[in-house]
């Protein structure tokens, strides 16, 4: 065991790498083997005897006092230690009493006063440290703890700690009130100032503590609500899977509403590729002009027919005279005439011009070629036309 500060500092300094490493690994087990590899068994033995290291089973760790000192000084301890504040109040009361009892020895009085001043400085710092730690833990738990049950458990744990801290704050207030006599007669200006500052500080802390308490209660309620909701949803899902939800719940009556929210019955909308909103938003004209060059447009050519004769649109019925060529042919076959002479002399219902008669002659000659005799040697003349004498074959044909 080391009782000399000089010796302690030397030991800590000479193996500072080991202590640094052990401090960093304070939240997990470091094996005896691992440490002995680094500094050797003899050294471990010495440090264990000096109570700087301690070991349980197969693991080695920093002695609790060293560890607490490091943690407290570096403010790395994440545990909330409310007991410390309580302890300080007991010390405050104790030192005040000592100070009051010591009436003659000025030196001793100074010593007690020094301790009182230290406590007065320490109290708000400790409360603040615990408050900020609680705030951090509560926020983290609420945001990151994924299990509802653990979240509620942790939040309730912090809530209890917070209430304890609030209690401490009240106790400090009371203690200050109780010792007001001491502070009014104490000669040290510094002590009086400290006690006044402490009072102001405590008021600020109380506001923050109440805020945090509200928050943690809200978090707990929200989490409880969420947990219930989650359990409820799981139940609903089970019923849905078993196709029982309609029968075993009030879902259908809930859906019978006087008015229906529109999102529940979204209207069927005709979907087109052309969203009118986009047309206005993104400069439709530009888009079309760009695409005009990209997409080949097949030009469709339309043939125009000639303009219709106006008579086509006249409502009056028009009658046209048609010559029945078959009947004419039959008649011609029975006559003893030549074809043109026959047509020329024939009394048509409608008077035929010479040109029309020539056309008719040609038509019949072509159509009934096989029934007629074409005499290449006989030609007749009618006005400006010279025509071949065509006579019927068969019986009328001269032998």
């Amino acid at each position, binding site marked *: 065991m080391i009782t000399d500060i000089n010796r302690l500092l030397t030991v800590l300094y000479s193996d500072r790498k080991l202590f640094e490493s052990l401090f960093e690994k304070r939240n997990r087990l470091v094996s005896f083997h691992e440490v002995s590899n680094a500094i050797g068994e003899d050294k471990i033995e010495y440090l264990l005897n000096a109570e700087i290291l301690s070991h349980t089973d197969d693991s080695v760790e920093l002695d609790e006092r060293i560890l607490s000192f490091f943690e407290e000084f570096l403010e790395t301890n994440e545990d909330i230690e409310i007991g410390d504040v309580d302890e300080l109040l007991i010390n405050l009361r104790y030192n005040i009493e000592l100070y009051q009892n010591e009436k003659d020895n000025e030196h001793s009085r100074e010593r007690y006063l020094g301790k009182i001043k230290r406590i007065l400085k320490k109290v708000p710092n400790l409360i603040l440290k615990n408050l900020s730690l609680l705030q951090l833990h509560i926020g983290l738990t609420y945001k990151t703890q*994924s299990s509802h049950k653990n979240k509620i458990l942790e939040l309730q744990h912090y809530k209890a700690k917070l209430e304890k801290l609030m209690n401490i704050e009240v106790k400090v207030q009371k203690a200050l009130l109780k010792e007001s006599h001491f502070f009014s007669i104490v000669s040290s200006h510094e002590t009086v100032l400290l006690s006044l500052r402490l009072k102001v500080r405590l008021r600020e802390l109380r506001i923050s503590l109440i805020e945090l308490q509200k928050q943690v209660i809200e978090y707990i309620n929200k989490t409880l609500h*969420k947990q219930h*909701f989650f359990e409820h949803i799981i*139940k609903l899902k089970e019923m849905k899977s078993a196709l029982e939800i309609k029968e075993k719940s009030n*879902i259908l009556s809930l*859906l019978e509403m006087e008015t*229906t*929210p529109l*999102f529940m*019955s979204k209207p069927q909308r005709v979907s087109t590729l052309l969203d009118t909103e986009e047309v206005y938003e993104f400069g439709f004209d530009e888009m079309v002009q760009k695409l005009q060059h990209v997409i080949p447009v097949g030009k469709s050519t339309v043939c125009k027919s000639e303009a219709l004769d106006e008579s086509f649109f006249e409502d009056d019925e028009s009658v046209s005279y048609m010559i029945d060529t078959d009947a004419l042919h039959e008649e011609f076959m029975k006559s003893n005439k030549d074809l043109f002479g026959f047509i020329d002399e024939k009394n048509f219902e409608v008077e035929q011009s010479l040109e029309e008669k020539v056309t008719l002659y040609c038509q019949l000659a072509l159509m009934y070629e096989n029934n007629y005799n074409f005499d290449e040697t006989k030609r007749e003349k009618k006005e400006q036309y010279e025509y071949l004498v065509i006579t019927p074959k068969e019986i009328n044909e001269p032998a």
Partner: protein
Amino acid sequence: MSLPKQSKEIFEILSRGNFLCENSPVRQERDLYQSCEREFGAHYDFFEHIGFYLIREDGYFYFSKELPQSQTEDKLHMILEYIDLVELMLQFSATFGVGFRTTVRELADAVQSNVVLKDRLDRLKNISKPQTLHAQCAKVFEKFKKGGFMALEDEHEERYIVLNSYHYIETFLNAIKVSANETGETL
């Protein structure tokens, strides 16, 4: 009657079955929400004349309308689908609720390492079609988005936020009471 400002824009959004949420990532929608908040009475009267009821809830607005009861079956289908979707998201994160933010990738990662989630996802209707897991997860978010309960906050990251309107689904599902003999078995 003087026409409240922005009635046209509000009508265009709400009449399509969408919501106006206070926590929408779209600035225009937040502005319209504020307009509804400021001139609720005037907006309500105006829309009531054309057969729409402007409903004000905690942090969101929507339209309600008198519709034939024959649509109950459609509504039922919609609610049942949300039971599956909400359960999936709660299995994914216990903190799922209004204001919750997450990305498609985070859901996909969680599904990959959790068979329960994978099973839930595969059983969802119309979700199992896409080929990749990422596409499947993206579809879940699209469903919420289409319903008006989520909004895309960051396109690049594919990050979505749960809108205030999700409160409606939560309230509705909470209001479903399981008949007495059924609860008796579970307690």
